[in-house]
């Protein structure tokens, strides 16, 4: 160790609090980088190997009914490598002792086993035995949460007929990593919805589909050709009632998982960069001060013959050493957080394996990035150090030129200012750089804290909006296929049902010029109260008798606005031709890309006078169980979803994942804010030691000297916080933009309380920082300070 290294370590020790602040910020930055990045890599790797090993299909065609040999027509399409016919159907599941309806999705599998696309991974138990029909493999989490043991029997009802199947295994599938039944559900409820893999012969019998299928999977040579291939398939399968053609990338589970991974990737880039940039800024402030203070020492070193380069290197090392220290802490914290986050993902996603690997290259990269930012922060200071001329440095630095403050020219104001405030105004006006840095630091802090509160309250706002404003029903009952008025009246007659509203959800291709989107159009009755369309500000958007209301995201995708005409083509059934509709209004939504029409108008588009495939119910309090019992006996009910259950599972999931993440973000924001403010305050104090000592000698009390400093810092803090408000809103807006996907988006909604809390918290930080430097004012050695030469 050279003498310079000793000087380095002693300087670091002497300013331990400031150094620690830099280390903490770097630690937050690298920890978030490592956590988010390794989670991203783990998830992406697991997903890709899982998809490849179990041959996730490149496309899926859903149709009403086709002969099983229709797949040969599909395989003849150029570019298609292989196709698979299967039967898929949602059925009601009876579990002994469970009152709530359970929905199972039957998927037919070949017997004896052969490798197929979208294969089932048997986690426990076995595959079907040849010749036995009544066997079922149940999806893993559904089985566990409903306490279904291998060997138990499971009752299902298909089209009013009841069957009993013996559970032979627990399974998982790449098709259902994120297991929700429809897009509308958003969050998995694995105890209410499960996959039931059954032998092909059983499906043929139960669904009455001998040598037929309603679902075709396919593999292609080049996924880029998918659009053309699917258009051909549409023609080839004409007459079989094709209602959905889904590319792999549009498959529900793939999209959710993909969005999550994408979100991680975005986050892995934004958050650590922000944190490390702030670390660089703090370093810059700290080291610039150090170089100014050590001017004479630097000159002396050079006079002895140290080169510019070795002097520059000396100061660069501060940045590098602090960054390295922060990075080492970040390794541990980041890895620990990554393990925790992966555990959250295990709850949310159904993977056969989910590795939490340590990625040496991520660690190496985080070190590299942290060091780079550290060096960047130290760069300007070391360049300045290198430029110092030995002879010149022995003389005091040219004092700053003073100027008059404009406020001084406003006589009446100036004369009425107290002594303290005159001092403060002059200080700020004549040390604009230092004051600016202080304001800037506080502004960033406020912005960060707003970001922290925003991610926390954004979710709550989202939940409130969705479940208190938009989905106001108690129960949603979906049917298999369309129903008429009769079922509607039937529903209204049930006990405990206070209000019924019909709903028709139908898939369409909506086009406008060359823009095109497959989505669901929802038919609502006039004066619908249980499903409302609104703006985020809470204004209700009515669905008129004619015309169509688009969700904001859909309007953007189609590039249309109010008054424009769009074309609609049903994706299901045997309705021919395109219909037109005028966009009446745009409603704001956080989920999906739906469109909305009057239910009668939508029925007419399908050549019917009235059709519905779901009802929304408002029921008596505590009537959940009896409604459940009643619905269990209604034929053709596909699902019964209680709003409270959906809400609960959402809250549970969010409490598990997002809440923890957001709390971490808020915590990090707090640590970083305090670090910035503490360092800026402490550097400002160090630069003014001499001034403050002079004041003390003149007879100002510590309280009076402190007042000048505190009032100035609080004033600058207030200005900074005021600038931080729009800055924070800007950061949040960027986050909203970064996370915007078809499935869901974050509301750009910052509660006013978040602003208030951020400002208050920032001011608390300012006060804490001032309190922390207070001991330095108290300990100020007047004699020593004043005897040093300037």
């Amino acid at each position, binding site marked *: 160790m050279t003498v310079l290294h000793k000087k380095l370590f002693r300087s670091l020790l002497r300013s331990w609090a400031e150094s620690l602040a830099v280390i903490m910020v770097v630690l937050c930055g690298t920890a978030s980088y490592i956590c988010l990045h390794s989670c991203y890599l783990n998830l992406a790797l697991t997903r890709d190997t899982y998809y490849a090993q179990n041959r996730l299909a490149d496309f899926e065609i859903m149709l009403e009914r086709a002969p099983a040999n229709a797949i040969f027509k599909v395989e003849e399409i150029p570019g298609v490598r292989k196709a698979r016919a299967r039967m898929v159907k949602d059925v009601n599941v009876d579990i002994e002792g469970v009152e709530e309806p359970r929905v199972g999705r039957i998927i037919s599998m070949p017997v004896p086993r052969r490798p197929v696309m979208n294969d089932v991974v048997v986690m426990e138990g076995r595959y079907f035995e040849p010749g036995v029909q009544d066997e079922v493999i149940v999806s893993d989490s559904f089985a566990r949460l409903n306490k279904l043991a291998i060997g138990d029997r499971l009752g299902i009802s298909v089209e009013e007929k009841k069957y009993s199947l013996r559970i032979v295994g627990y399974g998982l599938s790449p098709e259902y990593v994120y297991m929700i039944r429809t897009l509308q559900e958003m969050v998995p409820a694995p105890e209410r919805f499960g996959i039931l893999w059954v032998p092909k012969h059983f499906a043929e019998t139960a669904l009455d589909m001998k040598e037929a299928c309603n679902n075709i999977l396919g593999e292609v040579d080049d996924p880029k050709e998918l659009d053309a291939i699917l258009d051909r398939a549409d023609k080839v399968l004409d007459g079989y009632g094709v209602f959905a053609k889904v590319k792999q990338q549009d498959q529900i589970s793939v999209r959710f998982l993909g969005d999550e991974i994408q979100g991680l990737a975005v986050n892995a880039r934004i958050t650590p960069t922000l944190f490390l940039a702030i670390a660089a800024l703090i370093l810059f402030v700290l080291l610039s001060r150090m170089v100014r203070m050590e001017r004479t020492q630097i000159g002396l070193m050079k006079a002895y013959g140290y080169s510019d380069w070795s002097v520059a290197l000396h100061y660069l090392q501060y940045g590098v050493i602090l960054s390295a220290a922060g990075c080492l802490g970040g390794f541990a914290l980041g890895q620990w957080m990554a393990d925790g986050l992966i555990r959250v993902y295990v709850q949310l996603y159904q993977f056969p394996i989910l590795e939490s690997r340590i990625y040496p290259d991520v660690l190496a990269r985080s070190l590299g990035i942290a060091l780079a930012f550290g060096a960047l922060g130290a760069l300007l200071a070391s360049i300045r150090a290198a430029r110092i001329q030995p002879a010149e440095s022995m003389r005091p630095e*040219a*004092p*700053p*030129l*003073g100027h008059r403050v404009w406020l001084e020219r406003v006589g009446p104001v100036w004369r009425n200012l107290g*002594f303290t405030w005159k*001092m403060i105004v*002059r*200080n700020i006006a*004549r*040390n604009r750089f230092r004051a600016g840095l202080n304001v800037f630091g506080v502004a960033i802090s406020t912005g960060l804290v707003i970001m922290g509160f925003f991610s926390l309250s954004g979710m709550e706002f989202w939940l409130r909006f969705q479940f208190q404003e938009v989905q106001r029903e108690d129960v949603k009952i979906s049917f298999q296929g369309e129903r008429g008025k009769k079922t509607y009246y039937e529903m209204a007659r049930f006990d405990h049902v206070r209000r019924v509203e019909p709903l028709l959800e139908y898939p369409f291709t909506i086009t406008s010029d060359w823009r095109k989107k497959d989505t669901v159009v929802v038919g609502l009755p006039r004066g619908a109260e249980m499903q409302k369309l609104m703006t985020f500000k809470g204004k209700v958007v009515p669905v008129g008798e004619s015309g169509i209301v688009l969700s904001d995201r859909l309007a953007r995708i189609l590039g249309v606005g109010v008054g424009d005409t769009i074309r609609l083509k049903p994706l299901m059934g045997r309705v021919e031709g395109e219909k037109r509709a005028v966009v009446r209004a745009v409603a704001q939504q956080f989920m999906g890309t739906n469109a909305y029409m009057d239910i009668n108008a939508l029925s007419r588009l399908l050549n019917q006078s009235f059709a519905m495939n779901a009802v929304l119910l408002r029921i008596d309090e505590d009537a959940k169980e009896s409604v459940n019992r009643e619905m269990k006996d209604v034929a053709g009910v596909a699902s019964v979803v209680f709003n409270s259950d959906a809400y609960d599972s959402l809250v549970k999931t969010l409490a598990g994942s997002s809440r923890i993440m957001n709390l971490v973000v808020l915590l990090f924001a707090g640590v970083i804010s305090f670090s910035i403010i503490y360092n800026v305050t402490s550097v400002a104090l160090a630069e003014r030691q*001499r*001034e403050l*000592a*002079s*004041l*003390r*000698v*003149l*007879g*100002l*009390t*510590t309280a*009076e000297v402190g007042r000048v400093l505190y009032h100035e810092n609080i004033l600058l803090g207030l200005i900074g916080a005021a600038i931080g408000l729009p800055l924070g809103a800007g950061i949040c807006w960027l986050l909203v933009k970064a996370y915007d996907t078809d499935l869901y988006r974050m509301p750009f909604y910052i509660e006013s309380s978040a602003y208030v809390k951020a400002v208050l918290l920032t001011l608390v930080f300012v006060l804490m920082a001032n309190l922390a430097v207070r001991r330095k004012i108290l300990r100020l050695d*007047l*004699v020593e300070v*004043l*005897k*040093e*030469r*300037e």
Partner: protein
Amino acid sequence: MNTGNDTNHTDIFQIRGLAKDYQMGEVIVSALRGVSLSIRAGEFLVILGPSGSGKSTLLNIIGGLDSPTRGEVFFRDSDLAGYSEARRTRYRRQHIGFVFQFYNLMPNLTAEENVELATEISPDPLPPAKALEMVRLGERRAHFPSQLSGGEQQRVAIARAVAKRPEILLCDEPTGALDISTGKVVLDVLDNINRRFGTTLIVITHNASIGAMADRVVRMMDGQVRNIVENERRQSAEELDW
């Protein structure tokens, strides 16, 4: 006044058995070892001594910047040794003006504003402009320190110290950073203040020739008073043989 050795004049300070120890790691360094001294109101006292003789420590204790380890420092009737930090601050504010070798001006305040720093906290100050005129800087009061020479900056520091109308003006090597001619101007200003206002003036220096301007010269060595010499006649700054 200030001529004979009779006991008729009032003593402003009565210092008895003053000692100051500094703990430097494991070693105790004694900066003062039993100093006894009376300082008369309105006199010009020069304390001479090499560095390490304890003269600065003595000045700092008299000025209320530091407190003694043992001994008494009576300012009129009260012992500074028993003062709390807050009381010492008040004492400095009401009675003491300080001038240091380095001028310690606020670089971002004009000459006049630097003086205002003192007048703002004083109950009956000189107008800042008047204080600057006294140090012959009336013309330059709107200048910032960077626009003034070293001697001028020191005179601003003196103006700042006397603007409070202190009874005692303490100067630690006031000419230490100045050349001969500017140093003489500064000394002349100090001498003038002492004569016009009757301000007790204590100057510490290692420049023995300055002693010729004083009423009395105290020589210090190793933390003790070696001797005290009373001058027959006070020379003017102009007459000094530097």
